[in-house]
Every structure is written in C-alpha cells, then in structure tokens.
C-alpha cells in the first residue's frame, strides 16, 4: 500500500499559509481545521517550510511576542517530503525513527497533500484489521 491511498480520502484541499502571516493566524487555522501542521508556501506556490504545533511550543517559552511574529521566524525549513508512491510502511518507519509528525506530499514539484502520523497509524490499523478479518474468514470457511 502506498500513501496515495491516504490522500485519496482527504479531499483535494491542503491548508497552507504564507511565511509573512502571523503565528496567531496559524493558530486560527489549526483550530478551524482541526490540524496540527501547516505547509508554508511562498508567492510562487513553492513549498518552503512546515509550521507544526511543536514549532510554536518550542519557541513560545523564550518569546512573549510570538503570536505576532511571522510564520517564517518559527517554521521548520529543512523538511522531508514524500511522493504519492511512497510505501506506507517505509513512511511509517521514517516518521517514527525521525520523530516526524507531518509529511508534505509532492508530485512532480507540486504539493498534493500532507500525511500525518495519525493518518499513517489509522491506515496501518485498517490494513491489519482487514488482513486479520480476511484470514479468519478463510480459516472459518465452511463453519459459518
């Protein structure tokens, strides 16, 4: 299974933010869309960073004025991206090992989605549930 399967049921819209927008605006988007990270795009629509809840939490104790600061001051610039054909299991391993919670997905240079660790866990859970259910059906074939 590849992560395209996850993107297929997430609609076509990716919530993004611009680097000059304020952290306060980012928080509003987190709450409105019930998400934990925003992809940061520049004027040309190029992916230049990721702003996660944790980035704000990490910066907040040293910075009283954080709410009015621009996203670019806090966002993570050095990010890992995925492609739609990435295997679910490889992505799960990479996210776990590198302690990454969100992975923007890029196809031929274009942002096509974002996958969270919650999405990955759910996809793995459903995958295993499905396998167990199918195996049980086969084992019980004839008894049901």
């Amino acid at each position, binding site marked *: 299974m590849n992560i395209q399967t996850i993107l*297929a049921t997430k609609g076509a819209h990716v919530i993004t933010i611009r680097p000059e927008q304020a952290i306060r605006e980012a928080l509003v988007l987190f709450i409105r869309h019930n998400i934990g990270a925003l992809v940061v795009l520049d004027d040309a629509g190029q992916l230049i960073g990721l702003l996660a809840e944790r980035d704000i939490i990490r910066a907040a104790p040293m910075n009283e004025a954080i709410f009015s600061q621009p996203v670019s001051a806090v966002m993570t610039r050095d990010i890992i991206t995925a*492609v*739609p054909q990435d*295997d679910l299991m*490889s992505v799960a391993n990479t996210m776990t090992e590198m302690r990454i919670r969100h992975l923007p997905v890029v196809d031929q240079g274009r942002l096509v989605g974002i996958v969270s660790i919650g999405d990955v866990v759910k996809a793995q859970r*459903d995958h295993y*549930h*499905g396998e167990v259910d199918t195996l049980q059906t086969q084992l019980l*074939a004839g008894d049901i």
Partner: protein
Amino acid sequence: MGQPGTDTNPLRVAIIGAGPSGFYVAEHLLRQQGLVVEIDMLDRLPTPYGLVRGGVAPDHQKIKAVTATYDKIAAHPRFHFYGYVEFGKDLTLHDLREMYHQIVYTTGAQTDQHLGIPGEDLHGSWPATAFVAWYNGHPDFCDYQFDFSHERVAVVGVGNVAVDVARILCRTPEELATTDIADYALEALRHSRVKEVHMLGRRGPAQAVFTNPELKELGELAGADVSVLPEEVALDDLSRIALEKSQDRATYRKLELLQRYAAHKATTKPRQLIIRFLVSPVELLGNADGQVAAVRLVKNVLYATEAGTLRPSPTDQFETLPVGLVFRSVGYRGVPLPGVPFDERWGVILNQKGRVLHSETLQPRVGEYTAGWIKRGPTGVIGTNKPDALETVRCMVEDLAQGAILHPAEPQATAAEKRIQERQPMYFSYADWRRLNALEVAKGRAGGQPRVKFTRVEAMLTARRNIEKRNH
C-alpha cells in the same frame, strides 16, 4: 415529519454496487442502534458479490467463502437487492435523489492502469483484469478470445493479481477442473501450449507486494516449476539496510522462499514459472501482423526516496524477452460515475473520509457518500473494506444527526420498487439470485466443482423464466 430513522419514517439508503464494500456499508448501517434503515442495493449485473465473484481466483474458494456473510446481511428484512439495474442508465442520480435520503457509491475499480509504453496496444497485450474477469465468467468478458498457442507469456507486475494470473496460466486442466472457473475458460486453457510464464517485477524481491501464502502456493503447483534468477534475488545494500532496520519477519520469510526457488533444480514438470525482479518493460515489440513478439526490458537499480521508500531507476542495460502474450497487471483504476465528482489524480470519487465533495467548493455534497476501492483506490484485501465502510457509515450517521440529508419527494420502498420496475422490468431480486445460485451449485456438484457459473445475462434471464414456469 421528523428526522428519518424510525419505524414510521425509516432512513432510506441506496447503495450502488453489490461488492464487499457495499455489503459492509449495509452491515454497519443495519447494526446502528436505534436507527431504522431501509437499504436498496443496486448492481448493474444480475449477480451480487462484485470482485469476490468476478475477481478472486477460482482456485481460491476459501476466500470466496466470505459470501456467506453477505447472504446473511442480504437476509435482513429491510435489505433489498436490485440486480441488473445500472446507475446512470436505468436510474440516474436525479432519480435516486427523489427516493433516498442517502446514496453510497461502492462501484470499485473497474478498469486497469496503463503501462504507458510503446506497443502496449498490440494484439496479444491484455490488461490482466480482462483475463481475470474472463476466467471468472464475468458477462462483459465472456466473449474475449485469448490465444494460448504461444509458448511464452509475460505477466507484468508482482502483486497478488499478477500471481493469480500466472498461477491460473500454470495450473493443469485437472487442477482447474475442480474450481468454479468459467467452463469456456477451462476448455480454452485445456488446449494451452504455454510453457513459460515470466512474471516481471520492477523493484527487488524485498519490495515485491505479493503475500507469502500466495508465493508459497506457486511452489506447490502440480504442473509447473517456479524459479528465480539467483542474481536477482540477492539483496542490494539499500534493501539490506532497510530490512535490518525494520526487522520485518514477513519480508525475511518471503526472501527465504524466493532463495529456495532460486536454488531449486527444475524437474520434469511441463511448465516453468520464472519470477523476475528489477526489470521494467520499456516497449512491446510486434511482428508484421501487429502481434506481440517480444518485450524489451530495462534493468533497474533501486534508490531511496526522502521518505525511505526504495524505488526503481532504469539503467542502460536492456534485454529482449520473446513472448507471444502479455498480461499487464500494474493495478486497477476507478471509473467515473455520471454526475459524480471524480479525482483524476488518484482515480477515485472526490471525497473526504467517504463524504463526496463538490468539485469546485470542495465542500461535502449532501447525502452522497462512497466506500471501498472507488473511495480510496485499489488496495488492501477484502477485509480492509470493513473499517473503510465503517468510516463512511460514521459520516452518514453524523450527518443524519445534523439533519444534513437529502429530502426525497418519494421516500417509500414501494415508490422505489415501482420506478425500478418501470425502468428495468427484468431486474433481479436477491431471491432470484439465490435460485440462480442453487442452479449453479447443482450443476457444479455433478462435475465435482463448487459451481458452474452462468456467464451470460441472457442465460440468467432464461434460467429465471424456466424456474418461474416450473413453479406455476
């Protein structure tokens, strides 16, 4: 009248497509406590079960046993099946909106992915899905003609569908005769001259997506030896490091099996099944008659994506494999439904967690849902559709509680039945199907088969007429 979902005002739901996902949606809906739901399931074929009947290989009867669960769901008094009724033709979306509070599309992935290489459309190059539907007796495919006079066949892909295709090509007539393979397919394969089947995987052995039970089964064929090239089953550095990290036992077991096949000495079995890795077809070469004569392959090496997946990258080394028949098995793809937004990127209905979305506003379209392969793409086993259907049903129940449902003018079961009767008087009920099923099973019993399938709609209609005549 208040919110639907009561005895006097049941929630009326139409499910389009009678495959596993459709049944799991029905099951989850009927299990909702305190909610009275009436379900009408439509399918364009007279027979239910979708890919369990038309896709699961005939020599895998235990997998097909899941249909017993579907029969139990169909026995619910508030469940109705309308077979041989096509969405978009016999009943339109407009019709459904006039009769149901909620509509669920579970039409699966009905076509195949293309390889996108020159020569793909030569004679003798087929989508594996067509071969699968043909040997399973799907009415749309029963007149297909495959030429098994060729000795060498290529199956592009190493997923479970590719394994099914390769295995059916390698089975002896005696092995196939005890399955429910379509009778015409058994007859055609009886005269098969196929001697070599080459399965072509673009990545390495550690990345092959076939499952271990399927791989093990290939080593137990009565009439075919399975082999792997030792140099292609040796692990490259990237795969070795990834495996050491993940310690995935299933992959270790898969590699052990493949290494055993690589060391295996050929016996006198009449057929050879050769599993290849790290090769991609770049062109199908034809003869003067436009018939496939060979497949040109490029050797691949693996590279790691940023997210850690090992993907194939072509080298400058090529080889030509002479073959007369090619089955392309690189995945199924969903087909758009009339009037329903489609996401071309992933080949699915545009949706969020199963709620169908407007293509422009990307907001949910009230009362329309999807589940299964047409929702998430063609992945997973049959059981994977259960949690997938549950996610969709949760959305349906949430929306009902919010009052976000359709407001049909004629939400009565009798009105739906009347309209279906008008549009498709020959529709099949579940009782009709059970009678056909009994005939199929009885006919199979005589020859030691699980069943002999009806493969033409006309034959199904005739059989039903004969039953009706007998009963009068």
